[in-house]
């Protein structure tokens, strides 16, 4: 690649890119500021302000973040595992079998891309309460487990896997399921990673449905916990709220920082474009 020579216009762009980056980071930067300084500096910026970890201690003691963590972790893991399993099977059916009603079924699946569970909170709440599942982690996850996005994505990936590989596996004596397991799944790894990350970050951050369907500390995920913890009604105390926020996003943020390269690459391999 030959250097694109750095003209003044190019420099303007570079500065623009940086400025946007700063703007985009601002909320996070502020969160760090407020969380690590005493409350009186929460809204005042003074380079000499003393540093403190007090806010984290306070936040940690004011809400059962530990429990929330566990809940969110369970929730995200459960959803992800279920999604990977269900979507794999369905995507395989769509990609490799010619069955009656396939196109209609696929259209019905795609419908969920539009009609996400968020929209159907009222009815889904009723269903959960009929099933006696209200206020359970399972109930938070159930509506998301058959993810149309996942099915769609995996189907696209499966379709790009050369027919010859499937044929080869068949010649080597593979059954239908072992073809899926030995050939398709490993080859779709980038898609699984990309989808997994999108799913994790979505459900780690999801709020409305968990808010509605959970009632208690033992099921409440981080977001709902945070919303209650930081509800403005109780008088906004930014120092503690930002500390709580940082506690809540830290795992995901760290994971993202560590894996961002793989993440972006998986996206590219997965053909999410």
């Amino acid at each position, binding site marked *: 690649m030959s250097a694109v020579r750095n003209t003044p216009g190019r420099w303007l*762009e570079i500065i623009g890119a940086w400025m946007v980056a700063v703007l985009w980071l601002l909320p996070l930067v502020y969160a760090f500021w407020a969380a690590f300084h005493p409350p009186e500096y929460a809204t005042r910026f003074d380079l000499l302000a003393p540093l403190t970890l007090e806010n984290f201690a306070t936040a940690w003691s004011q809400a059962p973040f530990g429990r929330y963590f566990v809940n969110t972790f369970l929730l995200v893991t459960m959803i992800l595992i279920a999604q990977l399993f269900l979507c794999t099977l369905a995507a395989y059916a769509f990609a490799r079998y*010619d069955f009656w009603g396939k196109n209609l079924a696929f259209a019905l699946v795609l419908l969920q891309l539009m*009609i996400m569970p968020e929209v159907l909170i009222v009815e889904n709440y009723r269903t959960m309460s009929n099933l006696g599942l209200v206020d359970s982690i399972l109930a938070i996850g159930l509506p998301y487990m058959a993810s149309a996005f996942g099915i769609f994505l995996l189907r696209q990936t499966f379709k790009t896997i050369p027919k010859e590989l499937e044929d080869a596996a068949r010649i080597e004596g593979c059954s239908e399921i072992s073809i899926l397991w030995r050939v398709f799944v490993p080859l779709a790894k980038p898609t699984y990673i990309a989808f997994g990350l999108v799913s994790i970050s979505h459900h780690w951050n999801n709020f409305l449905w968990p808010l509605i369907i959970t009632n208690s500390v033992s099921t409440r995920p981080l977001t709902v916990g945070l919303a209650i913890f930081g509800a403005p009604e109780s008088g906004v105390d930014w120092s503690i709220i930002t500390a709580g926020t940082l506690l809540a996003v830290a795992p995901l943020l760290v994971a993202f920082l560590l894996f961002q390269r793989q993440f972006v690459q998986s996206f590219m391999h997965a053909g999410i474009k």
Partner: protein
Amino acid sequence: MGGPRFIKNQVYGWLLLMPAATLLVAFTHYPAVATLLQSFFSSGTARRPSKFVGLDNYAYMLEDPVFWKVLTNNLWYAVGTIPTSVAIAILMALWVNERLPLRGVVRMAYFTPTVLPMIAVANIWLFFYSPDIGLLDQVTRVFGFHSQNWLGDPDTVLACIIVMTVWKEAGFFMIFYLAALQSLPHELEEAGRLEGASRWYFFWRVTFPLLMPTTLFVLINAVINSFKLVDHLFILTKGGPDNASSLLLYYIYEVAFSFFDQSYASTLTVVLLLLLALIAVGKFTALDKRIHYR
């Protein structure tokens, strides 16, 4: 027809599909239909059982000024968030796709909002927007502007919500563009350079048209988001003042869970579903185009 492979296709196809299909039916298709039905009944309480009321709920909706308010809000919200976030996403993707000092940091910066829960950062944005003590006011004061009640003023509150949404979405969409850009053959750009095309010309003549499938995909996601992204309202404004920042889904939540009026909530949900169905039609044609494109 009818060979061993044909039978196998039917059996395996449906067996594999079944688990996902069951859940989809239970939590997408059935509730959608049930919502429609519920919208023809009145809400029941322990003392007053629900009964069939025909189109009463719809009539009430048409007369409900709040409904019209949130619907228009939502349209403005869509108009405000979609083009902006998509344009910014493209710009960001172009920037971080090139050689750029500190590219890794910049890319991460763009993407962080995606990782932060809306509900958590809303409190930080609340600080930005707070009159007098907020960051925005602190900055504008340096430039000699009067304090502005950003969230307390119906004229600015929706814009504030929009800005926050754009901030949240742009980085996510950027990833899609980035992936698309990197899959464009490098040789195309070189061919363009040999022909002497400027970056601007090349972007509009080649890159942008080739990104069209991605743009369609992203656009549709942006549209859907504009109907479902309401988390920040819970912290920032609760839809106020005087519903100036309320959106359809937030109103549905209020009606269903604050007013305990499930039927009216269902009625509003039907409207939302209709809107989404319209988009769905758009989406399928778009997807078709995409496939045709390859």
